[in-house]
Every structure is written in structure tokens, then in C-alpha cells.
């Protein structure tokens, strides 16, 4: 298998232009972020922040500065409301399991949207083993939550509602303020969690303004290092820990704090928020050029998710009909364009993205979907290069398909 990978990589040796658009699934950490992180491995703050020596106190200072900054960027009141976890999976697991276990005497019902990310979907499914029930609220064809169904679903048993601020696949910006209002009007005791990993740094987001109890943000989604995320927890709410170990600066997540990653996440956040308007204008302009270019070059496409102001500025999700996504991602990789497909092969069936299925896409439309996200680090030349190679790639795959499957 490793030999095969070497062979695959060899096929890429001639490529001179690389454009990475798979920012949904982690990606390039810019040099300015890496440079900020490096001293923390071996020059400064390399100690454990809870121990009584210089490198420990330095690390403690780093943690406090980072709690401070991330809490400010999230709009939190107190730095104590922030907990760093490794991935966003850990943060979402902590938010959901932790609040379910802490609230289990009050009720057993969890409500989520039908298009929550996998690290919310799978954890709520797992909670069923502990006697909790799950209700999924449907969305419309652009991914907006059905508010009436939400109102109907909330009952006395409901303890937790989790709806992402921005859907990671469709870029749909939910009206979270209204969603929270509906939930809290029914019962202010119900906890509200939002996965804000696709909002943070790309759409205005403020935990106090939205009145959420819990919110997840993640470093790699803003070109920080992977393996570091943060969970906001309102000061009035208490959660159960979901893992045990030595407690340091954060009571909800044991273990030695990973200061270089915390520094990297903080730096990436600074860069994202320092010139927020300019950054999102750039993402949006590149994204629009990409989408417009694809639609002017090719036909038989579906644009997935909303257009305009209710879509996050970085997200482009397009279904290429009569194209199977995996074949297209490989074809494009061989040309230096890296993106991912909405379907993944597991067992015999290609599994379409549950998000695309929830907005009513047919399976064959989902199978030909690709997700691309722009960043402020991409250039006009990058997008021009994608538009040069993508139509050819789609056309080649369509030639192989020929008349197969055409009704």
C-alpha cells in the first residue's frame, strides 16, 4: 500500500502549479503562523503551565493571553469561558456529551438539524445508548432550518439543541439568533450549542449577541494548525467532563496544554480578525470568480446551498452531473488542483453526503459534488489556473461516462 502511494505521488512530479481548495478538510498553515509557533517548542514556554518554574510560568502566561484573545474574538465575556480541546470533534463531543450528562435529570431529548456535521451527528447517535432520544429538524433546499418543525419538536424532555451557525458543506448561514430565541422562549433552561467552526473568521459571530450557551470554533478552518479547537461555555452553565486526567489551566479538558498549537490558533485568529472585512472580501471575490468561471465553462451543474449574503464568503459547492466525485478529485489532483467530493466510498455503496441528501439532492447529484473553500492566501492566478484545468477534467470524465446512466 505504501508503495502504491509512492507511485501516486510520482505522478504529481511534473506539476508546477498547486492550488489547494480542500480547506474544509484542513490544509496549508501559512509561514507567518508557523513562525509564530516555532519558539514555543524549544525557546520559550515549553514547560507545563501548571508547574512552578520559569518555562511553566511562561506557558501559563501564553495560555492566559490566548484564553483572553480567543474569548474576545468569540465575543465571550470572560476568558474562563474558553476551553481548548484538540480537534473540533473533541469540542463537539464535550459540548454534547458533557451537557447531556450534566442535564440528565432534567430530560432526555436532544434536538439537532438534519445537516449537522458528522462530529455532532455521530455523538448524538451514540447518546442514544445512554437513553437519550434525538430529533432531527429538516432544512429547506438551501439548508435553512425549518423553524416551525423546531417549535413543534421542543418539549418538556428537551435538554439540548445543537444547530451549526454556518453549514460546513453548503455555507448556509442560519439565523441562529432567531433559533436561540425560539428555544429559549419555550424553555430558558434548554442549553443551546452551535458548531461555529465555519462561521469563525468568516461571518460576524458573537456568542453574547447570539445568546448561545456553547459554541465550537476550530483552528484549521482559519488556516491555523490542526489539532486545536476551542469550546465556549457560558459562565452560568456547567458541563460534565468526558475524559479524566490531570487538570491544568482548564477544568473541562485534562492533560498538558499544547502551547505551540494554542499559539498557532491564536495567531491565525489574530490574522483572521485584524482585517476581517478585507479578508472576507478577498475570499468572496475569489469564490465568486471560481463559481462564475465554472458555470460559464460547463453545463449540467447544480449549485448547492444559497447564493448571496446568506452564504459564507469562502464556500463553493457544485455538483457536476454525469461525473463521479472521486474520479474527478483524482483527475484534478494529477493537474495540481486539490479538492474533495461530497461522497465517499464505504463498503459497496458510494455514500452521499447526508447534507446534500437533506436538501433534496438525488444521489447521483450528490456523487458528483465537490466542495471548495477559498482563503485570503489564494490568488487570482490560482483561480485562473483552476478554471483552466477543471473544465477539461470534467469533460474527460464525462467522455468515459458517455451515455451510461443517461435516462
Amino acid at each position, binding site marked *: 500500500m505504501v508503495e502504491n502511494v509512492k507511485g501516486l505521488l510520482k505522478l504529481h512530479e511534473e506539476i508546477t502549479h498547486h492550488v489547494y481548495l480542500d480547506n474544509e478538510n484542513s490544509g496549508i498553515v501559512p509561514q507567518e503562523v508557523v513562525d509564530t509557533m516555532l519558539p514555543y517548542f524549544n525557546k520559550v514556554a515549553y514547560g507545563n503551565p501548571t508547574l512552578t518554574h520559569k518555562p511553566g510560568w511562561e506557558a501559563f502566561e501564553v495560555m492566559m493571553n490566548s484564553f483572553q484573545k480567543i474569548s474576545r474574538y468569540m465575543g465571550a465575556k470572560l476568558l474562563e469561558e474558553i476551553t481548548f480541546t484538540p480537534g473540533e470533534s473533541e469540542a463537539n463531543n464535550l459540548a454534547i456529551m458533557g451537557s447531556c450528562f450534566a442535564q440528565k435529570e432534567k430530560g432526555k431529548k436532544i434536538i439537532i438539524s438534519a445537516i449537522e456535521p458528522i462530529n455532532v451527528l455521530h455523538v448524538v*447517535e451514540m447518546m442514544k445508548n445512554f437513553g437519550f*432520544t434525538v430529533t432531527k429538524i429538516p432544512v429547506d433546499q438551501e439548508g435553512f432550518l425549518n423553524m416551525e418543525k423546531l417549535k413543534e419538536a421542543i418539549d418538556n424532555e428537551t435538554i439540548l439543541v445543537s444547530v451549526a451557525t454556518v453549514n460546513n458543506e453548503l455555507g448556509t448561514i442560519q439565523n441562529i439568533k432567531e433559533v436561540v430565541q425560539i428555544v429559549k422562549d419555550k424553555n430558558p433552561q434548554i442549553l443551546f450549542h452551535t458548531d461555529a467552526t465555519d462561521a469563525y473568521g468568516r461571518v460576524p459571530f458573537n456568542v453574547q449577541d447570539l445568546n448561545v450557551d456553547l459554541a465550537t470554533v476550530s483552528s484549521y478552518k482559519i488556516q491555523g494548525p490542526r489539532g486545536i479547537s476551542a469550546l465556549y461555555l457560558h459562565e452560568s452553565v456547567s458541563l460534565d467532563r468526558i475524559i479524566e486526567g490531570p487538570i491544568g489551566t482548564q477544568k473541562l479538558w485534562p492533560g498538558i496544554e499544547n502551547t505551540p498549537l494554542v499559539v498557532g490558533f491564536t495567531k491565525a485568529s489574530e490574522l483572521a480578525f485584524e482585517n476581517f472585512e478585507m479578508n472576507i472580501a478577498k475570499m468572496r471575490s475569489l469564490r465568486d470568480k471560481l463559481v462564475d468561471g465554472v458555470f460559464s465553462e460547463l453545463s449540467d451543474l447544480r449549485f448547492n446551498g444559497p447564493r448571496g449574503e446568506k452564504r459564507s464568503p469562502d464556500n463553493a459547492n457544485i455538483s457536476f452531473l454525469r461525473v463521479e466525485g472521486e474520479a474527478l478529485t483524482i483527475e484534478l489532483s494529477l493537474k495540481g488542483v486539490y479538492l474533495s467530493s461530497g461522497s*465517499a466510498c464505504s463498503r*459497496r*455503496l458510494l455514500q452521499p453526503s447526508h447534507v446534500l441528501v437533506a436538501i433534496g439532492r438525488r*444521489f447521483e447529484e450528490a456523487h458528483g459534488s465537490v466542495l471548495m473553500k477559498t482563503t485570503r492566501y489564494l490568488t487570482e492566478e490560482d483561480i485562473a489556473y483552476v478554471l483552466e484545468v477543471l473544465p477539461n477534467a470534467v469533460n474527460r470524465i464525462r467522455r468515459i*461516462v458517455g451515455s451510461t446512466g443517461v435516462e
Partner: protein
Amino acid sequence: MSRIPLPYNPKVMDLFRNPKNLGKMEDATIVAVAGNPACGDMITFYLKVDEQTQIIEKAQFESYGCAANIATSSIVTEMINGLTLQATWSNITWQKVTEEIGGLPSVKFHCGVLAVGALKRAIRKYFNDRSCAPVWMPKENTFEEKQALEEEELANTLSTRLKPEEEKSL
């Protein structure tokens, strides 16, 4: 969705990039399709068969699917070229196809199965159309043919359910 790493071997990649015997055949003796776009896996085989000798003179394919699907379909057209229908039936199995292509990731075995299912379906159709049943051809569907049918049935149930605005519990 969960993702599985798919380190394809050079042979698969070569046939994905440069598929052999690709395209519709206008004067095909027999055409057979297997799979369904909803499964992300569908193959059409076109066979030109000499009616006297029952030798496959030419085989072509079209394929909607992943790199493994394209590569296995392509290699099947090469493997059966010049074989009689009987020899094709008895010699070409999904294991042989997988071996010939230098191995596939286990989640992609079904691509070889579907390719052989489409091929056997084509041969069966050839004899059905001529209202004869050679002794070497079992009346019962083979493993590969059954798998193709199963996949198609699954696809039909998949594409009829799941509409937006339908509340679904996990």
C-alpha cells in the same frame, strides 16, 4: 461521511488515465448495463461477437464511477478480447480481474464484481436473445450477477426515499 484512504496501484492509475477500448460501439452484437448512478457505480459493455465461432472480436465500455470502476471495466475489455463466450464465462471472475489489475483496496472489490456482473449479463443476454441456453451456462445467476442485481435494487430504494422537509429521526 467516513473516508477511507485509497492508495491505487500504478496499473489502476494508468488505466484510469488512459482507458483502453473506451466508448460506445455502434455495431455491437450485444450491449449490457449493470449498476446504477445512485450507487455511484455503473458500467456499459459493448461486445462484437462472431456468430459462427462465438468469439468476442471486440469489446468496448463506458463507465460512470470511480477510478477503480473505470480501470476494472477497461481491463475486462482487454482480458476478453479474442475469447469465446464460453471461455469468457468460465475464466473471468471478479477475483481474476482484481488480480489482473494488481489488486484493489478492499472497499473497491465491488467494482470488479460489478464489471464481471455486467459481462456475464451480456453473455446471458446474447443467448437469451437467440433463445438458446448452452449447457455450460448455469440457469441460476452467478455471484457477480446477483451482486449487480442487489446493487440496482438498493439504488431504487435509495432514490425513492429521502426528500427534503421530511422529518427523519436517526
